[in-house]
C-alpha cells in the first residue's frame, strides 16, 4: 500500500466540480475518463457566464468599454498561458481550437514552407491520430518520408531506434509528451536535444501532459508545444500552440481573414505581428478567458500536489487491478501519468465499458484514436481508466468491484 500524507483536501476539491455530484443509472458517478476530457470547476463555469453576462464584445480595435474589457481579459489569459508553460514572450502563444488545430497549423505552414521532397519527418508509434494524419497528408502532398519510432513491449519509445533514424534529412520530429492510451511519459528533453543536434525542429504534443506535468518550454527547448484547454479543467474548443518566435516569424500565415492582417489592399496585404498573424477571425473569446480560471485553479492547488495525488491513485489502482485474474495492463512504462489501459482475457473492452456504465462508472474503451498502437500490441482496443485531481481511492475500489462484477456476468 502506498502511504502518503495528502496535502490536498480532495472532498473540498470535489465540491468544486458540480457535475461529479450526480447519480448515473442509480449509482454515484465515478468519472474515470479524464484523459478524454476533464470536468470543469465552478470557477471556470462562472468565468464563461460572467464573460457573457458582463463583458462580451469583440476584441481588439474596439474603443468602447466592453471591447476594452474583453480585450484585456483575453490578453490576460495569454499572459497566464505564457507563465504556465514558461515561454519567454506572449508573442509565442497562439490560441487555437485545440491540440489538433495546433498540429495542423504547424504542418500547413512550417511543413509546407520548410520541408521538401526527400526530407524526413519522425513521429512515434505512441501518437494520437491527430499527430499522425496531418503529417501523412503533408508527406503525401510533398513526397516527404514519414518515419516512426517503435514502441517497446513496456510501452516506451525505443530511443536507440530513434537515434539511428536521425540524420540531416530529418526536418521535424513530432511526438507526444505523454501517451493518451498508455500514460507513458516520454523523454522529450532527450528527444529534442538529439533532434537539434541534427538541425531538426521538434513539436511536442502536450495534450496529455499539460494537466499532470510541469511544463517549461524554454528548459525543454521545444520548438513547438501544443495542448488543449479541455484536458486541464478548462473549456472545450480552445487550445494553445507555443512556437519559438524566430520560427513563427519565418512561417507563412495559416488562415487568411480579419485580425491577422496589418493592411489590406487588392494589390498586397501585409500581415499582422505575432501572435495575431496566426489568429484569423474572431476567436473563441469566452473560452480563452475561462482558460485563465482553469490555470488559476491548478496553480491554487499546486501542480506538484495534484501530481502527487494522481501518482498515489495510479499506484493504488495498478496494485488493485493487477490482482484481478485475467487482467493485463497495457503500458508498463517506468514513467507514467495516471492513465491505466488494460485488457481482459476473453472479454471485449466494449462489454466492460457498457457494464461499468451501468454501475455508474465512466471509462473509455476502444482504440483511443491510436489504432497503430493497438496494432502494435495486437489488440482491438483497451479499457482505459484515467484519473484527475478529484478522484479517490474509494472510487478505484468501486472500479475494481465493478470489474469483478463484469467478469462474473460475462464469463
Amino acid at each position, binding site marked *: 500500500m502506498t502511504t502518503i500524507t495528502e496535502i490536498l483536501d480532495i472532498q473540498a476539491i470535489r465540491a468544486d466540480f458540480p457535475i461529479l455530484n450526480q447519480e448515473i*443509472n442509480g449509482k454515484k458517478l465515478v468519472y474515470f475518463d479524464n484523459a478524454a476530457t476533464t470536468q470543469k470547476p465552478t470557477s471556470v463555469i462562472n468565468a464563461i457566464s460572467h464573460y457573457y453576462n458582463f463583458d462580451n464584445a469583440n476584441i481588439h480595435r474596439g474603443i468602447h468599454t466592453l471591447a476594452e474589457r474583453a480585450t484585456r481579459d483575453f490578453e490576460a489569459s495569454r499572459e497566464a498561458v505564457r507563465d504556465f508553460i514558461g515561454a519567454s514572450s506572449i508573442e509565442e502563444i497562439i490560441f487555437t481550437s485545440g491540440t489538433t488545430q495546433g498540429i495542423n497549423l504547424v504542418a500547413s505552414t512550417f511543413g509546407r514552407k520548410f520541408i521538401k521532397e526527400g526530407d524526413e519527418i519522425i513521429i512515434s508509434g505512441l501518437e494520437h491520430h491527430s499527430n499522425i494524419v496531418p503529417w501523412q497528408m503533408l508527406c503525401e502532398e510533398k513526397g516527404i518520408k514519414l518515419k516512426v519510432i517503435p514502441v517497446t513491449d513496456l510501452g516506451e519509445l525505443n530511443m536507440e531506434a530513434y537515434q539511428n533514424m536521425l540524420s540531416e534529412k530529418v526536418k521535424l520530429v513530432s511526438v507526444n509528451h505523454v501517451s493518451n492510451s498508455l500514460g507513458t511519459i516520454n523523454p522529450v528533453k532527450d528527444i529534442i536535444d538529439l533532434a537539434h543536434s541534427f538541425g531538426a525542429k521538434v513539436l511536442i504534443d502536450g495534450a496529455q501532459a499539460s494537466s499532470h506535468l510541469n511544463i517549461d518550454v524554454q528548459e525543454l527547448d521545444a520548438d513547438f508545444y501544443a495542448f488543449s484547454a479541455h484536458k486541464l479543467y478548462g473549456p472545450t474548443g480552445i487550445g494553445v500552440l507555443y512556437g519559438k518566435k524566430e520560427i513563427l516569424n519565418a512561417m507563412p500565415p495559416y488562415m487568411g481573414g480579419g485580425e491577422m492582417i496589418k493592411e489590406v489592399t487588392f494589390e498586397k496585404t501585409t500581415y499582422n505581428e505575432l501572435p495575431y498573424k496566426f489568429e484569423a477571425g474572431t476567436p473563441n473569446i469566452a473560452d480563452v478567458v475561462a482558460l485563465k480560471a482553469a490555470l488559476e485553479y491548478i496553480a491554487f492547488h499546486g501542480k506538484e500536489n495534484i501530481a502527487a495525488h494522481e501518482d498515489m491513485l495510479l499506484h493504488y489502482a495498478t496494485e488493485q487491478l493487477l490482482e484481478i485474474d485475467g487482467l493485463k495492463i497495457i503500458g508498463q512504462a517506468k514513467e507514467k501519468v495516471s492513465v491505466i489501459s488494460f485488457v481482459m482475457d476473453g*472479454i*471485449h*473492452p*466494449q*462489454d466492460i465499458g*457498457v*457494464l461499468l456504465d*451501468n454501475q455508474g462508472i465512466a471509462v473509455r*474503451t*476502444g*482504440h483511443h484514436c491510436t489504432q497503430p498502437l493497438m496494432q502494435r500490441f495486437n489488440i*482491438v*482496443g483497451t479499457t482505459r481508466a484515467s484519473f484527475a485531481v478529484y478522484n479517490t481511492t474509494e472510487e478505484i475500489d468501486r472500479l475494481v468491484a465493478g470489474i469483478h*462484477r463484469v467478469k462474473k*456476468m*460475462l464469463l
Partner: protein
Amino acid sequence: MTINETQDEIIEEFELFDDWADKYEYIIDLGKKLKGFPEEQKTEENIIKGCQSRVWLNARQENENLIFEADSEAIIVKGLVNMLIRVLSGHTPKEIAEADLYFMDKIGMSSHLAQTRSNGLASMVKQMKNYAIVYGSIKS
C-alpha cells in the same frame, strides 16, 4: 408471428426483470447463444464498421422471405443482434423495410442504437433495411 408480435413478446420477457444486471445477463446469454459466423465468413464484404467492435451481417432470400445472420466481437452487441434477427429475419423485404423497431426503446436498450455508441448496431439496422429495399426492388 408478425414483426410487431415478436417485438411485443420481447417486451413482455423483459418486464420480468427489475434490475439492470438481470437484463444484461439475459442479453449476454442471448449473445452466447447466437450461432455467429465461421471465421471465413467474416469478410470485408460482410463487415459493418462500427468504431469499437466489428459486426458482420449476411442476408439471403428464402422463398418470399429475407433471412439474416450476424455476428459481433462484443457479447452484448451480439445479444442485441440476436434479438434484432429474431424480430426481423424471416419476413418479407417489404415488412422489414417498413418495420418500426420500438422494442429496443421499450426494453431500455435504445442507447445502444445511438450512433455515438459506435458499436455498429445502428449501422447494422440500417444495413438490414437496405438489404430489404434492394431485395424488394429486385423482386418487383
